């Protein structure tokens, strides 16, 4: 493996004030490394969506980014609560977000489908009471 960069960022539950900062950092790194702008946008959208999901829905977790010459990989893991019905969660418009989250402009039920749409590889595994893992890969060429 020819890694250009590998970083792990913790994301805390309910940290609305700072939500998006990890994605902003990732975007600046990608830009610095000369990753094509179309790829940067796809990674930015997916990383922001997943960061928001960690803040809104999880008990906390982490985002791990690996940048290689031909791809960018985002591996995300949380500490629960887990998603009971993944098929339902993947449907556009389905959301369990609170009214408070909606007043912030989020919780339209677009997050997971939007991650899948932007990533070249997308895999989600979830176990109630344990947590959720999402793997996303974006090819640069």
């Amino acid at each position: 493996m020819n890694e250009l960069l590998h970083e792990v960022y913790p994301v805390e539950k309910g940290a609305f004030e700072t939500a998006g900062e990890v994605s902003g950092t990732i975007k600046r790194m990608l830009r610095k490394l000369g990753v094509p702008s179309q790829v940067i946008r796809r990674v930015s959208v997916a990383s922001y969506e997943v960061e928001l999901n960690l803040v809104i829905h999880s008990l906390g977790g982490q985002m791990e980014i690996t940048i290689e010459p031909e791809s960018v990989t985002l591996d995300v893991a949380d500490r629960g609560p887990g998603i009971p019905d993944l098929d339902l969660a993947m449907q556009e418009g389905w959301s369990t977000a609170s009214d408070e989250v909606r007043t912030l402009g989020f919780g339209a039920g677009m997050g997971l489908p939007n991650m899948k749409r932007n990533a070249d590889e997308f895999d989600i595994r979830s176990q109630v009471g344990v947590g959720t893992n999402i793997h996303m890969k974006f090819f640069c060429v």
Partner: protein
Amino acid sequence: MKATEIQALLNATVLVGPLPEEEILTACGSDMMSDVLAFPKDRMVLLTGLTNPHTVRTAELLDVMMIIFVRGKLPSEEVLNMAEDAGIAVVMTEYTLYDACGRLYAAGLPGGTGRRKP
């Protein structure tokens, strides 16, 4: 469409300048940042009534060229400073979201689908 033309069409006040000089290709109007994230396009302006910091964060991640706050909504100093740091122009119009989008669409600026006024 030029940003100055948009400013004129919406009779908008500049809150953070300078206005971008590059041609603007698309507009997106929504108070839901989740929806904005679902339809990002090149050289886009964002019309919204949502004045919290997430509007600027979303705009920054999507390379939005200009934020247009509708219905006379004034964001906080913190939000304006964030936009300035991110290099994003901000204007404010008294038009509602519906009216502001309608005026830009009628003048030839398409939305995310690329469909233009016939």
